[in-house]
């Protein structure tokens, strides 16, 4: 009978609930940034996910899970989901995507970024919810008033041309709407030839990126201010 009891207990142990509750703790960081390329018409948006998971697996639990990053990155109709390379459960993840939208004109683009980490066994275990950014290119144009043989003195052109600049006060500009190009007569061609100057700024969520792209024209630009 003792032998039977031992067998019965063994059977009980065999069928005990063996819920495998490994402990996972996420240490993932994310970063989204947008920029305007030097051509003044191409917007880039980069989304980065980086980090790791700490894992505590009970003895006897099946190992071998693969963790894979997924990134959602769109600018307007460009981009989408991208899957990075999978790694072991404790492996370090560094995955980024960049999407570019060209010649967006005066359009207001939605820029969406987010991501997650997916385990081959447990499914999604980390989520960075999608954030939507409003993105457009702001323009502010100035027209030459005069030069002193070295510096060039401009006046804001938006009042004459119509349109409201998104970024009226920025580097090189003062609140009165004037712009002084130090050494503008040494430009090639000089300011006396290119009498219009347009500053293009990336505007994200209605905040101007501090540094703009400068374009010069010798005739009024078609879209001087937005």
């Amino acid at each position, binding site marked *: 009978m003792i032998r039977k009891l031992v067998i019965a207990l063994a059977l009980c142990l065999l069928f005990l609930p063996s819920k495998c509750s*490994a402990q996972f703790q996420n240490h993932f960081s994310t970063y989204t940034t947008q920029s305007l390329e030097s051509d003044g018409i191409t917007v*880039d948006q980069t989304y980065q996910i980086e980090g790791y998971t700490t894992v505590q697996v009970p003895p006897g639990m099946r190992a071998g899970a693969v963790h894979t990053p997924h990134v959602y990155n769109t600018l307007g109709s460009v981009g989408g989901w991208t899957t990075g390379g999978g790694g072991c459960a404790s492996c370090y993840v560094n995955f980024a995507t960049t999407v570019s939208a060209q010649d967006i004109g005066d359009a207001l683009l939605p820029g969406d970024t987010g991501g997650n980490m997916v385990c081959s066994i447990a499914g999604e275990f980390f989520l960075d919810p999608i954030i939507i950014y409003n993105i457009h290119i702001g323009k502010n144009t100035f027209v030459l008033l005069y030069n002193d043989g070295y510096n060039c003195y401009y006046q804001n052109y938006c009042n004459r041309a119509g349109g409201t600049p998104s970024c009226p006060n920025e580097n090189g500009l003062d609140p009165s709407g004037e712009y002084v190009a130090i050494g503008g007569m040494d430009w090639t061609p000089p300011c006396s030839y290119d009498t219009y100057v347009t500053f293009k700024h990336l505007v994200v969520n209605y905040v101007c990126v501090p540094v703009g792209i400068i374009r010069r024209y010798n005739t009024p630009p078609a879209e001087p201010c937005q």
Partner: protein
Amino acid sequence: MKSSTAVVLVFACIPILFLPQRMAAQQPQHQHVAAAHTDHVIDGTQHPELVPDSAAYRLYFVTVSLSANPTDKDKKVQDAHLAKINLDPIDKQAFVTVVANFRSQYDAWTARWNAAATAQGDSFDPAPFLQQRDDLVQATRAAIGQSLSISGVKLLDAHIQGEKKRMKVAVP
């Protein structure tokens, strides 16, 4: 208690114990605890002041640096990202060099981490690797201090401080 009674009781427990086992079998083999992103991150969009400098610099370096064999497009994107700092051309080139060095070391470090994690499995201890990571960021910041002008260092720091509101950083 007679031994025959004990046997009956033991066998009676089997169906009861078997039921949760079957239910557990339908669940994932392991469970991720506290998977919600907001539980373990500093949300820079809400509290940029809480994002540690070391994490912010690391994320920025990783994002703006180029991996091995970059394309022309990669270089244009890097140029666009760096243009926002408004560094003078000399400082900008110095920063590109420093951050390229960072990236090669960071990629090598990541490879070492993953090799160890794969080989050691559950017994993998990330602590020494995390220290190496922080040391690399610190060394890169020191290199920036030595390679860029004072105004360039200030411009870079001001930019990265501003970028914290675009970051979500894991709590150490």
